[in-house]
């Protein structure tokens, strides 16, 4: 499988290449005692995009938009119903096991580790199953253990790990064989703030230092903000947006929400660059542009009002996408 240089260059630019990829599911629904109604669901409905080698891309969309289906097609789990799909020049559906050595996959909702066995047993098995050279394995494991803080967890059965610990264990497992591309399906779902930060920092370093191509789906826009220059939005199986995150904010004009608890009930606060969207007793909700920093706004409120507590809510993807639709409808 020697590539000529030009072929390798082409593969690098089109490392992940989708052309009109479709996935249609036949869904049977019981409508009576023995009657079943069949109808088709287009989970992925003609998606085209390219991801060059070494890029880190966010793939977002509401539940059921087709994100996971896309990842399953990229990893070869599912066979596309139509279109053309290549990863590193290889058709994943046809050469699933061969491609498996070159990719890493992390499913946020379920572990790829052996549930009843200590973490280190899973890693040892990966070592042999992926035929990782001994030195590489030792180096990679050391590095993951150090950066992901796994030292004390190696001898703990996976089922006893907390969600955050397990996720870090899963990420390490996906990287022991030096994959050229890493797919992360909701890698920060359910994690606390500290775990999220650890995972994000690790992924950022991985991409910067090893040049690993990363495609991640998420519900958390902060993941994208901190990790990805490029974001793709999918909804109803179609690609709605493909570009920088900043552009997405412009498209959606999304807003963050500042929730403030005041000492007492007050009329809606009056501050620049934010508007009160809801008042409930001493608690008020203020919307401000997602691109703006919250710091000056906070300073302004704290200076003029008796502030007790506060929190900032990120715009959720559903809201961003809803805005996208609304804008598209008016323009």
């Amino acid at each position: 499988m020697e590539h000529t240089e030009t072929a390798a260059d082409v593969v690098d630019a089109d490392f992940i290449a989708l052309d009109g990829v479709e996935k249609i599911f036949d869904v049977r629904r019981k409508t009576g005692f023995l009657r079943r109604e069949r109808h088709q669901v287009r989970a992925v409905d003609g998606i085209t995009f390219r991801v060059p080698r070494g890029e880190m891309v966010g793939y977002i969309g509401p539940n059921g938009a087709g994100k996971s289906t896309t990842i399953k097609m990229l990893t070869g789990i599912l066979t596309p119903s139509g279109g053309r799909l290549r990863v590193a020049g290889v058709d994943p559906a046809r050469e699933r096991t061969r491609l498996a050595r070159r990719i890493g996959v992390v499913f946020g909702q379920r572990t790829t580790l052996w549930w009843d066995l200590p973490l280190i047993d899973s890693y040892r098995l990966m070592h042999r199953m992926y035929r990782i050279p001994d030195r590489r394995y030792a180096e990679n494991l050391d590095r993951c253990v150090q950066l992901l803080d796994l030292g004390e967890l190696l001898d703990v059965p996976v089922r006893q790990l907390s969600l955050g610990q397990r996720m870090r264990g899963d990420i390490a497992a996906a990287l022991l064989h030096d994959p050229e591309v890493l797919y992360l399906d909701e890698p920060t779902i359910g994690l606390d703030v500290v775990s999220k930060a650890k995972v994000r920092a690790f992924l950022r370093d991985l991409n910067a230092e090893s040049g690993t191509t990363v495609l991640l789906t998420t519900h958390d826009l902060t993941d994208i903000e901190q990790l990805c220059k490029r974001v793709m939005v999918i909804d109803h199986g179609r690609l709605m947006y493909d570009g920088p995150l900043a552009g997405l904010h412009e498209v959606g004009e999304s807003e963050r929400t500042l929730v403030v608890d005041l000492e007492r009930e007050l009329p809606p606060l009056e501050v620049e660059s934010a508007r009160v969207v809801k008042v409930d007793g001493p608690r008020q909700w203020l919307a401000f542009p997602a691109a703006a920093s919250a710091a000056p706004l906070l300073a302004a409120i704290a200076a003029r009002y008796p502030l007790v507590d506060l929190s900032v809510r990120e715009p959720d993807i559903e809201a961003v996408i809803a805005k996208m639709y609304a804008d598209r409808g008016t323009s």
Partner: protein
Amino acid sequence: MGPAGPARPSGLREGTSDGPVDRVRDGLRAYRMITAMWIRSTLAYRASFVMTALGNLTATALDFAAILLMFSQVDVLGGYRLPEVAFLYGAAACAFGIADLAIGSMDRLGRRVRDGTLDTLLVRPAPVLAQVAADQFALRRLGRVVQGLLVLGYAVTAVDVDWTPLKVLLVPVMLVSGAGIFMAVFVVGAAFQFVAQDASEVQNAFTYGGNTLLQYPPSVFGKDLVRGATFLVPIAFVNWLPGLYVLGRPYPLGLPSWAAFTPPLVAVACCALAGLAWRAGLRSYRSTGS
């Protein structure tokens, strides 16, 4: 993690898996690695393993006690005396025990499809069948094999048979082919669970149920059942056909006597069919999801 640039040779050359021979080799390799891991982890708690293995042996031993109990009341069962029934029982228990030990965890496939953990096996560079078969490998199931061997050992010494070399040879052939036939049933059952995810009970009816059926002589069952077990789900080839030849008994369906020597062929055919069924099941999963 090294640079993942194009200059680094990818893992493509080593261990490519293209032909069916390569796939079988890869599968066996993965199976060996995964079972070795489970055995290691089982033996890490030696005392606990010894206890569960003994418990397993006792439980299966009670199973044969039921037959002994029956013979304390009657001298013959369907025209067969105790050593003869023990011979059939031991052969079936051994063959089933080996299959159950090797790939008995396959009836969990439906659950894996339901909860989506099957996907995690599909992204590993090893055949899924091997991974599913080796999952949760339970060495304690050795208890059933040991019990079967003990009963068979007793039967071989007690039974009134004129042992020709052919009959002696037929005994190990029967056990190995029988295990192969049962494994095929396990795999077909698992393949069916790709389509019907809660069919593990249906599978159990054929595996555990089939085993129970074979522990008695065919003469105690109706002709239709025997016919089904011979031609439909050919578990009769596990021990009835070769076993009755060894015992010098006629097979109820009046099959020619050479049929007693076909179990290896039947086993190979069953395994080939099971392999096809598995491939069809996996393909349907990959085109429909769960």
